[in-house]
């Protein structure tokens, strides 16, 4: 049992000092950091997966013909020809307005209506998604198609320029997972130190209890209950603070819809993990306290 049942009259054997001392506050801080790291890890992992899925079979054909009319005709012809191929899942021309709006964020004109921007010779872009995971064969066929419909155009696989980004995000997700593990170990260490300190502080009482015939189990349940309650308070506090931080970030994140930011989310499994972490932490604390107490009591005859 996580918080063992102890008769009320036995609980009086320990002075009532709930939430005194640093243990609940240290646990609260560690729990908050653990949840924030876990949330970051889940969000980054999902983002990396989303990017990976998006770039796996996607290329962009960049048509840089000088004449804008010819450029547009080539883009339209390529799109129609590509869409008719069996190895192409979808083919889409990127509208000039869409391209200008994307670039406008970097030029300081969010709507893309900057006159300097409009005067720039922008390439015509055609996004093409392949069918299946094999890219080698479809790429060769596409190269032949492009050479025919838009000579001089460049084929850019998304994996080339977004692949490193995805790998970086995945590495950050692993680091976040490692931090979750480290902070879990740190929390367990805090519980161990708390249990040992409690035994040292109450050693005369423990010695007396042993002498009048108390079993190790009776003594362990007494301390385990107190440590589990104090730890649960700390975990609850840390969870509430972490939830508030995550809600604040989530509210601000919802306003960021462009690019990679839009791929970061928790999903059902992520939410389940975040909700389960505090409960697992309480169980871990109770188990750690129990094992520490039993091991220490064995040294006392």
């Amino acid at each position, binding site marked *: 049992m996580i918080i063992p049942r102890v008769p009320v009259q036995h609980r009086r054997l320990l002075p009532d000092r709930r939430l005194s001392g640093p243990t609940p506050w240290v646990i609260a801080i560690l729990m908050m950091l653990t949840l924030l790291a876990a949330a970051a890890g889940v969000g980054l992992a999902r983002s990396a997966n989303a990017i990976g899925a998006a770039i796996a079979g996607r290329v962009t054909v960049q048509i840089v013909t000088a004449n804008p009319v010819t450029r547009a005709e080539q883009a339209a012809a390529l799109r129609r020809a590509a869409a008719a191929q069996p190895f192409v899942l979808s083919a889409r021309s990127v509208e000039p307005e869409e391209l200008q709006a994307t670039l406008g964020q970097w030029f300081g004109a969010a709507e893309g209506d900057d006159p300097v921007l409009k005067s720039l010779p922008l390439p015509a872009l055609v996004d093409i998604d392949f069918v299946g995971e094999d890219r080698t064969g479809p790429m060769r066929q596409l190269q032949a198609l492009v050479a025919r419909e838009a000579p001089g155009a460049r084929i850019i696989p998304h994996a080339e320029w977004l692949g490193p980004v995805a790998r970086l995000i995945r590495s950050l997700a692993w680091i976040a997972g490692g931090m979750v593990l480290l902070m879990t170990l740190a929390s367990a260490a805090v519980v161990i130190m708390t249990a040992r300190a409690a035994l040292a502080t109450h050693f005369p009482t423990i010695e*007396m209890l042993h002498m009048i015939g108390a079993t190790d189990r009776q003594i362990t349940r007494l301390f385990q209950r107190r440590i589990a309650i104090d730890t649960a308070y700390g975990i609850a506090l840390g969870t509430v603070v972490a939830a508030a931080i995550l809600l604040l970030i989530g509210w601000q994140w919802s306003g960021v819809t462009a690019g990679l930011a839009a791929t970061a989310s928790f999903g059902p499994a992520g939410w389940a993990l975040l909700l389960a972490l505090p409960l697992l932490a309480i169980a871990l604390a109770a188990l750690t306290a129990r094992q520490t107490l039993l091991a220490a009591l064995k040294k006392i005859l």
Partner: protein
Amino acid sequence: MTDVSPARPGGAMVEFDGVGLRYGPDAEILSDISFNLQPGSFYFLTGASGAGKTSLLKMLYLAQRPSRGIVRLFGEDLVAMPRHRLPGFRRRIGVVFQDFRLIPHLSARDNIALPLRIAGVSEEDLSGPVGEMLSWIGLGDRADARPATLSGGEQQRVAIARAVIARPQLLVADEPTGNVDPEMAMRLLGLFEALNRLGTTVVVATHDIHLISRIENAQMMRLERGRLSDPTGALRYPPANRA
């Protein structure tokens, strides 16, 4: 003062045979301790400070295992006994200390009730015996007092009450009168004598010669530098393997 009677085969409550005790690699602090304690008897354990009285008593109330030899309590070998069985034996032994060792944040009533609560006695069943015990020691009107508000004599009476509330078969007292005045010491000795008349085997460690002479049928064991001695020549303490 009468002699220690020879042990009746199989009748001793406590049997020490060739017991030695050392802490770490140092020399033994108790050597070749052999004696039997008979049920219902009263014993004084005497000796100068540092003779080993407390160490011997620790083995009696199962706070210490001997380094060698055999210790039998209530007919069972305690040296090889698994640890999880010791609490059951400890509940049959009451212990009184010179420094009382009451739990400071518990009232006199709760300190006395502690052994019964540990043994699983319900609150309804223990209220009667605890109340009677408080009256017996003359503290019926101080039941809710904390140890810090009690005098030394009152604290020691509470400690004795706690030691005997569960009706132990063996009562061990380590210098129980060391922190009280002579008049209170005599009163406490009277309590021990009353318990002994009810059948409890009593072992009192003391260096107070005046106490020893007050109990008519008490027997004496003397420790000198870790060994049991017979200063009068009349003490016999047969080991378990001799008739």
